[in-house]
């Protein structure tokens, strides 16, 4: 099996991403020639310039940014919960963001600039506050997982109610479209939200390093070595919430990436829960970028939604990975 360290993984995915970003600027409904690219570089306000700078590049950057946020959130979730099945949605924040977006759409705000995004963020923030309230009293991971299951179920039920009360099939279709994820027609401002999320994470992650690493040996060992579990829990919740909430606000629900990206990094040789956080960002970003490119390349009459494709492609790969790793996991903690 290939073994790479975290810096090499980031370098490889970073290079692949850079090459892909450049290549993907040529991908779109309008075919551009060399003269158009030259014009786009020298005259950003030209039609070719607007296609490159206002449509293709923001879309590609949003795809990478959303994947990167989900990869980081997934890696932190798995590290904190010490559970390979943990993913950014484990605490119900993604479900809360989805509910917020659905409510905004059903209230007729779908076309109002930023309304859906802000509503998604408000609801994910509300769910996060509930979780943080619990963390203050019960910082153990089992309580958080149970709470997350409860909040996800509640948001799911409220989402069903929103569908139930939806005024028209068009509105229902609009909500469904949002729930299936997309980075189509995203702007620089959306890409900025992804940068904001990753920036917040970059500020907080160094303080999580010792805690996530020592939690590998269990809570008692971590505490005996000076880890403040309440602080680690609160910081993990904030990080996961910000990243998951913003990713839903930018692109709707893009499943599977947060779960799979850390596992792909592990398969490449990085097992330490802290060291794999940023490589997971690159892996997740690359995954979503490739998925979004595939959507544009696939010859279908209706665009396949991003979240559908990430799950369709990622799930079989993940099953293969799980199959290969099964012996190690099963033998791991007997």
């Amino acid at each position, binding site marked *: 099996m290939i073994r790479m360290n975290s810096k090499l993984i980031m370098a490889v995915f970073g290079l692949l991403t850079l090459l892909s970003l450049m290549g993907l600027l040529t991908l779109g409904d309008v075919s551009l020639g060399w003269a158009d690219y030259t014009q786009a570089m020298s005259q950003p306000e030209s039609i070719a310039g607007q296609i490159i700078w206002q449509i293709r590049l923001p879309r590609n950057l949003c795809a990478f940014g959303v994947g990167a946020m989900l990869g980081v959130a997934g890696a932190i979730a798995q590290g904190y919960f010490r559970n390979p099945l943990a993913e950014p949605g484990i605490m119900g924040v993604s479900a809360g963001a989805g509910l917020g977006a659905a409510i905004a759409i059903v209230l007729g705000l779908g076309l109002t600039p930023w309304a859906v995004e802000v509503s998604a963020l408000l609801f994910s923030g509300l769910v996060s506050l509930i979780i943080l309230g619990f963390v203050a009293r019960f910082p153990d991971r089992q309580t958080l997982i149970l709470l997350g299951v409860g909040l996800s179920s509640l948001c799911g039920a409220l989402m069903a109610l929103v569908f139930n009360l939806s005024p028209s099939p068009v509105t229902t279709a609009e909500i469904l479209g949002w729930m299936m994820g997309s980075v189509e027609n995203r702007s620089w401002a959306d890409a900025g939200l992804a940068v904001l999320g990753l920036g917040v994470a970059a500020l907080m992650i160094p303080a999580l390093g010792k805690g996530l690493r020592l939690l590998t040996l269990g809570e008692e060992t971590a505490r*005996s070595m000076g880890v403040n579990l309440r602080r680690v829990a609160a910081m993990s919740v904030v990080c996961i919430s910000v990243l998951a909430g913003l990713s839903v606000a930018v692109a709707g629900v893009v499943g599977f990436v947060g779960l799979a990206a850390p596992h792909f990094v592990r398969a490449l040789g990085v097992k*330490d829960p802290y060291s794999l956080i940023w490589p997971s960002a690159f892996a997740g970003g690359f995954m979503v970028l490739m998925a979004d490119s595939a959507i544009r390349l696939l010859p279908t009459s209706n665009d396949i939604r991003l979240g559908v494709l990430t799950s369709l492609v990622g799930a079989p790969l993940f099953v293969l990975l799980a199959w290969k790793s099964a012996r190690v996991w099963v033998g791991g903690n007997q």
Partner: protein
Amino acid sequence: MIDVNSVSVRIGQTLAVDRLTTRLDSGKLYGVIGPNGSGKTTLLKALAGLLPYEGDIRIADASLGDMPLSERAAKTGYLPQERMVAWNLSAREIVELGLMGRAVSERAALAEAMLERVGLGGHAETGVFNLSGGQRARVLLARLMATQCPVMLLDEPLAALDPAWQRQVLRLLKQLAADGHTVVVSLHDLGLAVQMCDEVLVLNHGHLVVQGAPEAVIGPEVLREVFGLSGVLHEGHLWVDAEPVGLG
């Protein structure tokens, strides 16, 4: 050196340690022995600052309860009974977790030296999931030893080890004590406690029944009253009848 003054610890409604007073000196290996539920693990956790307690615990004259987390971690190392490891880190990476205060450049060499001491020098890059239970226990012991804390608390470190490694680990702990550490270890094997420990603390129902040199304190009465065994200590060896006697 640890001073424990009238310490009580409650686990739920149960008084797991009851007004326990003792003094544990540097340079000695202490064995904490007693039947299941006697309070051994609770006492070790309280000494590690992991459980709230009444009374006073002082480490080198500083109150454990008033210590910041970092100072407490620098003074006390703790090896829990549970050997769960969440991720398949290599043996070296696990030991390096005990060296987080050291320069990154030093860690790998120190970790490998510790692994040598527990007989796993050739397994530094092996994932812990690929090690046997006994080997994993030794990796975790190496992680604790790497911390070089003045006080080391080990909860049943011999579980899962074969007889030869049980003795070898106690020799390592005795060496740590000889180097000036205070080493406190909970044990179930009375024979090993007698042969290897400088002193034993006999616990029963949360009380410290007796403390002292094993030959002096483990007599027929303690064996009968505390462990429900009929036997004697003779020339450093414990002779116990096959049938336990009732505690009454």
